[in-house]
């Protein structure tokens, strides 16, 4: 009897451990419109300097958020249709950190070769003004995100930020290509307090890193 109880307890502990290991952000799946080559989805993101106590126990970590039905979620795993256009809008509320490698300040892999910052088309920014990047290295995609000026008024303290806070709006479009499981990440050393700015939120799924499931 004691043996059975012991085996059951160990089995439950192992099961709990395994379930714990799978724990990660819930994938977000935007709805596609159109068919064939013109099939497209909209992806609306914001980046914040601090995620805040409501959305994470690590309240001062920098993070991406995604908008789903008008509500901002902390999810960085997205499911997108294959061979489709993805129209991305990023509301960028964070200040600049600067790129360690200025080469990454030039956009690559986007439709038309340019992105817009507050409506103005650009193909690269000053590497010192970069706050984050949105990059899927396997797809050759990288877009630098211009940081909010340090002296801007009404800066957002923590997420979710409202549109009345100082921000830059960045839009671009990319094509997803073949089915697959691609990681995306930020290349700006934006994790304050960590060596090279690359610890914590820069190495934890759900903040500055995630996956794009192309299905």
């Amino acid at each position, binding site marked *: 009897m004691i043996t059975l109880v012991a085996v059951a307890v160990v089995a439950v502990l192992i099961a709990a451990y395994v379930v714990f290991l799978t724990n990660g952000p819930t994938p977000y799946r935007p709805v596609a419109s159109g068919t064939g080559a013109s099939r497209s989805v909209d992806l609306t993101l914001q980046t914040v300097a601090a995620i805040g106590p409501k959305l994470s126990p690590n309240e001062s970590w920098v993070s991406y958020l995604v908008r789903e039905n008008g509500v901002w979620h902390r999810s960085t795993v997205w499911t997108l249709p294959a061979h489709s256009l993805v129209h991305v809008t990023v509301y960028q509320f964070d200040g600049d*950190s*600067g790129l*360690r*490698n*200025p*080469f990454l*300040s*030039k956009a*690559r892999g986007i439709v038309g070769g340019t992105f817009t910052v507050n409506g103005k088309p650009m*193909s*690269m920014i*000053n*590497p*010192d003004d970069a706050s984050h990047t949105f990059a899927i*290295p*396997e797809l*050759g995609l990288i877009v630098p995100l211009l940081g909010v000026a340090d002296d801007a008024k009404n800066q957002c303290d923590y997420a979710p930020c409202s549109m009345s806070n100082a921000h830059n709006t960045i839009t671009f479009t990319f094509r997803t290509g073949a089915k697959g499981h691609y*990681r995306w*990440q930020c*290349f700006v*050393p*934006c*994790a*304050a*307090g*960590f*060596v*090279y*700015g*690359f610890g914590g939120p*820069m*190495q*934890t*799924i759900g903040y500055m*890193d995630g996956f794009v499931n192309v299905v």
Partner: protein
Amino acid sequence: MSSRPTSAPRGGHALRIALLTVVLTLITLPLVIWVLGPNMPPGKGTDVAKAQVFDNTVLLVVMTPITMFILGYLVYTLIVFRAGKADPTEDGAPIRGNMRLQVAWLVVTTVAVLFLAAFGTVELLSNNGSGGGQGPSPIAKPDGGALPVQVIAQQWQFTYRYPTYGGVETAQLELPVNRQIVFHVTSLDAIHSFWAYQLGVKADANPGVDNVAYVKPKTVRTFQIRCAELCGLWHGYMFDTGRVVSGGDFASWIRRQQTEFRDVTKVLPPYATTYNPDPPGRAG
């Protein structure tokens, strides 16, 4: 329990084991030399990869007789020297050693080891470091000039810089065939390792260190690039595909890169063997 000593076996066993070793070696050695050896990784696409294949083959050739002896000996003794069913705890002969055999073993293994060390050293020095990273001041260098290519590792991707082409930085690695290449591998943050598998090149990327490795590609092909030193979350995704192309293709490719990245090349720091970019230390 019986402690009755039994007599030592006569020489027939040793002869049979020697014969077994020779026969097994004669069967396996040709397979190693002509079948396994030429197909050893990482292939023969470059001078250093070819040298590694030769090296691996020689190691296998030296190991084969030793392996065949030990395996043959084990199988033979386990079949022949089994305990009797009637008295399973009957003692064997109290042989406590044999000085001549021990000395012979010592001599054979010492010769093999010294040969391997000497051979490895010669191979290392005569093949421009065999594709391994040699630090900032390599001792095994090719004669004549080499096309410098800088490999910049960062969390988590490699980029490449061609100082003789205006210091242009690229996201892809392309190399001209039949030209001596010198990689300068460095890192902007954690320790990475630049592993160009089919080229036979591996060099750790350390922050603040210029790690030099040489290679001369011999065939036009693509090759895998992977990070071979654990560098954090996306270590497993730090891979890339490089290309070895003809001289003409390389010239037009690098011209295209120079045009495409003209604006960003202007804001790059001047070419240096190492970089110490802002923001330093704990960013914020």
